[in-house]
């Protein structure tokens, strides 16, 4: 049992967490703290959202989704595909490694089954879109039409036309993907770039020049975990993507480099689990953060980060994260 002010007794911690949200009246009026951030034409009420693959409409009952800037879907591919063989994920001391394989029902399947559940949540839906050729992205976005409040292009997929190298590791391929998608949608386009690229600045610039509204830096890091006893691969797919707190310094560098290269917002994704992590990313140039792996152990992690940012500003007596960072930098 969790008791809060005035002896109110909540049946469980989830109920208490919902009740502890910011006063909706304050949020509806002129808020004391303005955390809003713009991604193209889309305004997010707070610069915190889940990372693709680390959120589902199942969480709608567990956390106050209205306190997030947006939701981000699992990547939708052009055709239906299953996931990878078991085991699909494991935990190693350095973090979590997954090779789920991004199962998808294709755009029609997504719209029929998952999208209504996302649309029912009180936050904009950013639909993640993937492809195995640069030509595969635009048709998916066209098929999804007006349903996405924004589109995040997952270009961390192996390019079948280029010996399986990540599409996002090639600035020319990024340009092709974004230019094609720009022709089929007016919604904001976010390009989610991979970690292993020759020049993150070149990738971010390619996205910006082709008409993207933001870049998301970065994704999980290709990795291969072995079983300590048998020295055999743990994952059914042998290799996977490393995520969690250990990748934060790697992604901080990338966010810093990308932020210096482009004028569009940079969304940081890599090891964010606390308000400190978010502020670290903001201090190197990010405008928003995505929370991924941390949500598995703490489903409320992203909401906690959003509340924490607001509280930091209130405690410092400032009205925005920009002011908070300027205050910190001046000390």
């Amino acid at each position, binding site marked *: 049992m969790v008791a809060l002010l005035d002896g109110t007794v909540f*049946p469980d911690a989830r109920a208490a967490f919902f009740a502890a949200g910011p006063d909706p009246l304050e949020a509806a009026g002129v808020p004391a703290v303005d955390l809003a951030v713009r991604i193209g034409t889309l305004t997010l009420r707070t610069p915190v959202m889940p990372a693709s693959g*680390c959120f589902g409409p199942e969480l709608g*009952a567990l956390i106050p989704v209205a306190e997030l800037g947006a939701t981000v879907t699992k990547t939708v591919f052009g055709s239906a*595909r*299953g996931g990878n063989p*078991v085991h699909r994920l494991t935990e190693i*001391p350095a973090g*979590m490694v997954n090779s*789920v394989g991004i199962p998808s029902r294709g755009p029609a399947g997504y719209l029929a089954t998952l999208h209504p559940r996302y649309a029912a949540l009180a936050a904009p839906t950013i639909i993640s879109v993937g492809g195995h050729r640069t030509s595969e992205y635009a048709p998916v976005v066209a098929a999804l039409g007006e349903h996405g409040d924004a589109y995040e292009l997952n270009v961390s997929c192996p390019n079948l036309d280029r010996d399986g190298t990540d599409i996002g590791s090639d600035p020319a391929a990024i340009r092709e993907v974004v230019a094609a998608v720009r022709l089929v949608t007016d919604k904001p386009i976010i390009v989610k770039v991979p970690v292993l690229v020759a020049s993150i600045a070149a990738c971010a610039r390619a996205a910006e020049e082709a008409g993207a509204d933001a870049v998301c830096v970065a994704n999980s890091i290709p990795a291969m975990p072995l079983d300590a006893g048998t020295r055999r691969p743990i994952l059914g797919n042998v290799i996977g993507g490393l995520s969690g707190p250990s990748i934060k310094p790697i992604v901080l560098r990338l966010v810093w480099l990308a932020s210096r290269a482009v004028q569009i917002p940079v969304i940081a994704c890599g090891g964010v689990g606390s308000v400190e992590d978010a502020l670290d990313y903001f201090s190197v140039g990010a405008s928003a953060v995505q929370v991924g792996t941390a949500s598995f152990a703490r489903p409320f992690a992203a909401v906690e980060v959003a509340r924490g940012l607001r509280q930091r500003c209130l405690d410092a007596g400032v009205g925005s994260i920009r002011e908070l960072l300027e205050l910190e930098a001046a000390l």
Partner: protein
Amino acid sequence: MNPNLFSEPRQATAEYTAGRAAAARQRAFAEADAAALDGLISVRPRSAVPRPQTVWDDAEVLLHEPVGERYRRLVLASGTIAATAQAGQFLMVTVPPHGGDTILLPRPMAIHRRRPSITARPTTADRSATVATPGTIELIYGVVGRGTRALAAVPVGARLQVTGPLGRGFDFAPGTRSALLIGRGVGICGVMGAAEDAAALGIRATMVLSGQRPDQLLGRSDCAELGVRTIEVTDDDGSSDLTMLATRLRAEFDGATPETTPPDVVMVCGAGVLARLAAELGAHWGVPVQASLEAHMACGLGYCHGCAAPVQTDPSVEGPLVCADGPVFDAVLPIV
């Protein structure tokens, strides 16, 4: 393989060879267990009973103690989960940091026992007073890796964050009169909820408790409390051998008297080979079999897709998940 330049092989030590052989046996056992599930499992039809709302809670640790050499018992106060969890459902337990080690993923654990809260009542003419006690859930886990080692260090009085109840559990069809429950190792906890339901519903239940050694068998006292008859089998005396166990169970339930007629349902947890054995018995007796599986998970809710169930599907279609479509599945012998 890249040809490398290590020194010429020498005769390995006996300990090294024995260690590798043990690892190989363990791997062979795991592979046999996975193979036993091949073609066996299918998603159960939707139950008429709705699933409870999943919540998360900061549950106080009321009891945390060793159970034999291998396991630990964890009793947590969570009124909501204790009141709503169904037999065979599970929790995701978030492991707090321990000794500088951060455990990233929560650990899925079967709900071994559910004890709803008791409200305080003053003494009346016909009954004595009761003290208010919170609803509790009991988990039993084996200390096997980093996560469970860190969990073992959590003291009584601390709070553990848990998410649940999760998954689709065991389901007694209306009119069920008798049940055979089979559990092995820590998997006994996976079916104990069914024993609780059987006791509450007046279903005559027998539970096979299988394990390596007699002093490691879980569930003895629980079954005694619930009035569930037990059949204990161990690797020590060879009685857990699958052929022997199958022969013994057929001898027990192939009779004609009410106590010896086949059970109306078989429920199993703890090993793929036992799920197959249960399916064979179910086919022999013509009764349904429900099997609970375990899997590596990250979210426990269904969105991470980490726990694909061992069900063959069209490669273009994502198959069922252990967390959201299970952990309890129908187990039916494949038609050959």
